[in-house]
């Protein structure tokens, strides 16, 4: 299954990057979300997969059965939450920008460079 999921990661990255390279700001943001999902899955995947044994430990039992690695879960969880904050801010920024300039085309954003 790791192979399939690795391919999923790769394709999510592909879609993410493809969308990042579009001219629409909205698409760009969506691309960012895909990249973010891909990254989360990558982090999750590279630590190894254990199906069906969530890391819940009962009183006194210690760890008898091989439980899933809880650490990458916590990391990804944190990353997701941070990602939420960032995405919402990006959306707000995009919205405000559109409201101010009336364009969604990134190619119009050339005034601050030169």
């Amino acid at each position, binding site marked *: 299954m790791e192979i399939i999921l690795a391919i999923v990661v790769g394709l999510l990255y592909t879609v993410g990057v493809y969308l990042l390279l579009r001219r629409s700001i909205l698409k*760009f943001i969506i691309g*960012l979300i895909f990249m973010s999902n891909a*990254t989360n899955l990558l982090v999750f995947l590279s630590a*190894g997969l254990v199906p069906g044994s969530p890391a819940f430990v009962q009183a006194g039992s210690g760890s008898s059965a091989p439980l899933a690695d809880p650490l*990458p879960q916590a990391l990804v969880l944190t990353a997701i939450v941070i990602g939420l904050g960032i995405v919402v801010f990006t959306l707000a*920024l995009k919205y*405000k920008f559109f409201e*101010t300039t009336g364009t969604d085309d990134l190619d119009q954003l050339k*005034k*601050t460079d030169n």
Partner: protein
Amino acid sequence: MITFVALPILLPFIFIISLLVFRSDRLAGWLGVFGSGLLILLSGYLFILVQKHGVIALQMGGWEAPFGITLVVDFLSAIMLVVAALIVFSIAIYALRFLPKTIRLNRFFIFFFGLTMGLNGAFVTGDVFNLFVWFEVMLMSSFVLITLGRTKEQLEGGIKYMSLNLIGSLLFLAGVGLLYGKTGTLNMAHLAEILKNDNQAILMNTSAVLFFVAFGIKAAVFPLYFWLPASYHTPNITISSLFAGLLTKVGVYTFIRFFTLFFVHDQQFWHQLLLITAGFTMVAGGMAAAAHYETRRILSYHIISQIGYMIMGLGIFTPLAIAGAIFFTIHNMIAKTNTFLVAGMIAKARGTFELKEVGGLFKQSPFLAILFMVPAFALAGVPPISGFFAKFILIKAGLENGNYVITAVAILTGMLTLYSMIKIWNEAFLKAQPANEYASTPFKKLKFAEYFPSVLLGATSILMGLFAAYLFDFTMNAANQLIDPSLYIETVLKG
């Protein structure tokens, strides 16, 4: 005592809470100055502690490394904390006079402290993922800060700044994931111990690439710096100043940290790559600065150019070179912030940042001229101000290690820096004020809160030059700690 290690993070956090609860702008101003002043004291104390103990580590939550998150202050972290606190303090005062009335101080200081918190977190953390979190705290604060004025330009700059930096963040996170997948740990010292003698360490190269790019974007090195020139000149000058001295340098800090502590295998490849990047960064930034006539843009490109020097020090990778990189970094943080502060004063005096539109300031305010001259000389490497020693150490390290090409590039780039500094000086100060709409702006005498930050930083630059011996000793100790991190590893894992 050891609890103080966490305070660089918690202090800004406490001030964020206060600002959320108390909403008065007047109070916010006081809180900002007071809070950043406290940070100076705190980081000064940590600095003293480190000199006594070498490395101090706090195992957060009492969970011993590598299981919990360890906060570590070594020489490098300590000096970065002190310098950052100094800059932050200056900006807090500067903000009182230079932020436009449309930006509420109460709000500004929330993000200001957010940035500080992330910054300090990045400096003290000994954990790879935790570093990612602090990066995000810093990034999020800077996103808000850059768009705080909400003008069209700022929104546009903000979008570019944000988007390219977010890609960096994602690559960083991917790097962390891969690193954890391969080594099963996140603690930097533990990573160092695992990878030290592992012949499979070369497999870390791919993760290292991701970190390289992520930090490269953050530090604004050559093919990754686009966000910086596109955005740094857009926000209010207070915010530009805050960014100028701090943000890219965190990238440099992490570069130094990662590539001395645990990405130390395959040195051939990494050092070559770092040197090539450094060379292109210096030249590209320097050339672009030469081409511009707007102070903030010139100074922004300078940031890039000078990042090249810091990376160069890391790429040469002798103790002297790394000491040089650190020396250069702290010198640059202070001088660069200061030039931005002065640029703000010039703009305030004249109403524009366009060099072609202003002039005659030498006559009108010799004091302002001196304020500019100190950081400008520092950046241009005029002895005996800080910048000279920074460059000298790097040149010495480069030539003694046989890195002739990069040293030549560094020297030539020095000429570019000089060119731009003279340009600003000639245009804004020496040349007569052209007869235009800005000519009628009366020159207002600078108020204490306006010039004090610059005086503070300028004095620091000069003192760094005069007492370069102490500072060099310190950076050399820092470099030795980095080259031989056994004390760091021992303190974190067994302390």
